[in-house]
């Protein structure tokens, strides 16, 4: 079985992995193999289905619950199972209660327990929610590691467009490139930034609730922190706006004043492809199977979608043989 995977973002690479594991001969094509076109390059990398349940359907738990295990098996050592900490400034404690009412798999923490988990936040928050089963990874490390693993396993990675006739099936994982062309797919702009500070140490992703501007900060190690992310109904991937930058920095500063002394290492913007229900799907059209609409759940839901697509590819194979 020869398969062409179009797009080397998280969806394409996860699908290529699932197919290669099942013994397919896989070629991955992407004109920008440095991931500069991929929304996943700008992702938070939180494997946090319990937190995401706050605004997503129950399906996010059902499909995302196994994501941490999938990544841990695919790339041993890359998944950090440290949970998620959710905090709110004293004024917005009602937001914390609202968050708790809509989610499960959490426990309430008091001041001392917060300090025990994240010493840098000692004395800053009286109340927090802790989601112990959640995990995180570094999207950029993971994308590169997965690419290298696939190459080592014999998957071809190419930049030039391929003749589709030479393949049995095409797996379209081109994400935002299909906006307005794949039924109802739209773009949701996300802006993020990287801060560098030697003064703060965090172990796990911390979400700061705010009635208008909720943000998260994910530690990447070596004093690097990813701060994200805005959610704007637009497919414009132009540079971050001053307002978004100000809001993200404000939130980081609220979490810890030492972030005021951090340096801004990078700002970035990505367009997340999303369907009307903000849930991804596998769409089959002839020989082509598309995985799209991963929205803000790339690393969380790509494994389940990749598995679904791989199953679709292999389930239909005997049929093709019987009816040539």
């Amino acid at each position: 079985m020869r398969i062409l995977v179009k797009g080397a973002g998280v969806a394409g690479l996860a699908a290529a992995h699932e197919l290669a594991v099942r013994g397919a001969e896989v070629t991955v094509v992407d004109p920008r193999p440095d991931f500069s076109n991929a929304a996943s390059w700008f992702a938070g990398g939180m494997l946090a289905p319990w937190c995401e349940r706050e605004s997503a359907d129950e399906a996010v738990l059902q499909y995302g619950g196994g994501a941490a295990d999938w990544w841990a098996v695919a790339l041993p050592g890359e998944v950090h199972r440290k949970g998620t900490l959710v905090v709110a400034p004293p004024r917005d404690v009602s937001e914390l209660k609202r968050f708790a009412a809509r989610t499960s798999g959490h426990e309430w923490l008091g001041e001392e327990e917060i300090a025990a988990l994240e010493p840098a936040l000692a004395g800053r928050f009286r109340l927090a929610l802790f989601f112990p089963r959640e995990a995180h990874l570094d999207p950029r490390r993971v994308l590169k590691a997965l690419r290298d693993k696939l190459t080592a396993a014999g998957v071809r990675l190419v930049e030039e467009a391929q003749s589709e006739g030479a393949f049995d099936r095409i797996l379209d994982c081109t994400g935002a490139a299909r906006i307005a062309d794949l039924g109802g797919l739209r773009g949701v702009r996300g802006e993020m930034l990287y801060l560098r500070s030697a003064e703060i140490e965090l172990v796990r992703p911390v979400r700061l609730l705010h009635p208008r501007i909720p943000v998260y900060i994910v530690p990447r190690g070596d004093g690097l922190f990813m701060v994200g992310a805005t959610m704007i109904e637009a497919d414009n991937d132009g540079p971050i706006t001053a307002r978004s930058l100000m809001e993200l920095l404000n939130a980081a500063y609220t979490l810890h004043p030492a972030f005021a002394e951090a340096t801004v290492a990078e700002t970035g913007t990505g367009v997340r492809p999303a369907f009307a229900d903000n849930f991804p799907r596998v769409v089959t059209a002839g020989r082509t199977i598309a995985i799209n609409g991963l929205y803000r759940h790339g690393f969380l839901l790509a494994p389940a979608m990749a598995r679904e697509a791989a199953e679709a590819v292999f389930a239909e194979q005997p049929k093709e043989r019987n009816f040539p």
Partner: protein
Amino acid sequence: MLELYGTTISSRLLLGTARYPSPAVLAEAIRRSETRIVTVSLRRETASGKTGGVFFEMIRDLGVRVLPNTAGCHSVSEAVLTAKMAREVFATNWIKLEVIGHHDTLQPDVFSLVEAARILTAEGFEVFPYTTDDLVVAEKLLEAGCKVLMPWCAPIGSAAGPLNLTALRTLRGHFPDVPLIVDAGIGRPSHAATVMELGYDAVLLNTAVAGASDPAAMAGAFARAVEAGHEAYHAGMLEPRDMAVPSTPVIGKAVFA
């Protein structure tokens, strides 16, 4: 029937479109609310997208009237520019005018609001000003050419419900013929019913529906509360009394004890 700038509207509930879990949930909430007008905030990033905005196409396809707003604008020039962009994107002269004066409470800057209303009215816009419950500001807005007023009943998104019934009654009493729409601050259906019982013409909601656990069901609940408040206002309600009045006469009743 509610009439806004010469257009007859069959529903007295207006719905904002921000912060729903997904556009699919938003569409269902709009359907259940039976609203005929939705507000949409336009950000510059949105207007400069590559495909002209699938999200806006979705909203246009819902078959409801769009009232674009200038949410997040902090100055007259910003609000005027956003209003002009919105007119192009949505092909309507209607504009919900917001000029924010305070970043944290999102309290309107009423001075800039009046100025922006004057400029936009002169440019042919039909302005729906988001204002406080201040009577004098309301007068200035009408002088500036507004034919609808949208006072808050509490700060945006606070869900606090009507904080100053006296001020709301004063506005109603002074402007019996101006459509008054309570915009901002409503948290639950009883709040909506309360302001409708004061004789307000309509209610605009966003967070109270978008932030509910089941936005579509909450939209339906609000639709009924708004309708109930409106009917009650016209049906003539009792005023509270200090004594008990039985609903059946006591005189002539057999006494057993």
